[in-house]
């Protein structure tokens, strides 16, 4: 019995193929629609602002946020999911990216720091999971936060994501999945915006931001 459980754990711990995306996203959307809800995680940010009393500063936050509790539970569940996946089903804890991407990343850092064996899913040295990452790629740790580069990446990125998601009226789940599935042209335009912004950042700005050494 115990042996079987270990086998199941090892089976799940393997890297998942891309088509599992359809299974995961499909079942998430199915269950939420079944319970008469919408799939859109960035709406939680508005709810949290409203719950903290932002309604007195802007009427955008004056809505019945008490009814949004279910979505906060989805976010809480996603946290648990991340915890269990990382700690019990992590496998080799590596991002199995292509050699071409590793070459690109090494070009950015100017040294051959990354190989197939040390590209951790989350580059940050705070956890044992990411401890093997070279210092240049130690992006998501508290130590990194107290550098100019880390501040731009963590605080700047967070601000843009929060601002942009509400400005566009949705994020990857709300527009790219729910909106496109419902044949909403606005969502398609928003997703084209996501990619335009992503390409501008990745190609024109990110290499220089990553090379900031302070």
């Amino acid at each position, binding site marked *: 019995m115990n042996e079987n459980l270990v086998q199941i754990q090892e089976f799940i711990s393997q890297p998942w193929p891309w088509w599992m995306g359809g299974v995961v996203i499909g079942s998430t959307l199915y269950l939420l629609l079944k319970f008469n809800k919408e799939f859109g995680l960035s709406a939680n940010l*508005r709810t949290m602002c409203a719950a903290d009393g932002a309604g007195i500063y802007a009427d955008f936050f004056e809505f019945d946020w008490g009814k949004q509790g279910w979505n906060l539970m989805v976010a809480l569940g996603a946290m648990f999911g991340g915890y269990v996946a990382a700690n019990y089903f992590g496998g080799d804890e590596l991002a199995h990216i292509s050699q071409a991407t590793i070459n690109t990343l090494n070009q950015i850092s100017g040294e051959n720091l990354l190989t197939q064996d040390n590209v951790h899913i989350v580059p940050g040295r705070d956890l044992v999971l990411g401890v093997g990452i070279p210092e240049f790629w130690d992006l998501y740790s508290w130590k990194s936060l107290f550098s100019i580069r880390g501040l731009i990446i963590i605080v700047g990125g967070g601000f843009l994501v929060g601002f942009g998601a509400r400005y566009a009226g949705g994020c990857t789940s709300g527009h790219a999945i729910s909106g496109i599935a419902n044949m909403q042209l606005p969502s398609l335009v928003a997703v084209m915006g996501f990619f335009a912004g992503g390409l501008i950042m990745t190609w024109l700005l990110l290499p220089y931001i990553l090379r900031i050494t302070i």
Partner: protein
Amino acid sequence: MKLFKYIIIGFLFGFGMWKLEAVSTFRIIEMFHFQSFHMYGIIITGVIMAIIITRLFKKGRIKTSHGEVHQFPDKSHEWMRYILGGTIFGMGWALTGVCSGMMFVLVGSGYTVFIVFIGAALLGTFAYGYFRRYLPH
């Protein structure tokens, strides 16, 4: 508890996204360099499943748990907001390699520094709410 089922749904989503490596900034960089099909595969299969499921709900072939036909809200046709807001979101997405769903998964997996990321995202959301009447929509 009525809300408990949503924790389960979130759990499935967060667990899956971690195992699919969609939480990884390296996967996002790879995607924007068009160096692998992986992320596109996730999005494309996800969208195909979502289209089928949405159709079945829209036509009433699948009913909600209350036995009703799910009502889908239409998005407003304010094009500027989708172009500008979308581009800003995309820049943040690629800068950190994290979107608004993945930030919760990452905090849960133990990278507590993402609490600061969520805090910054809240600040960004607040800034939008505060300045929205000055922004083109």
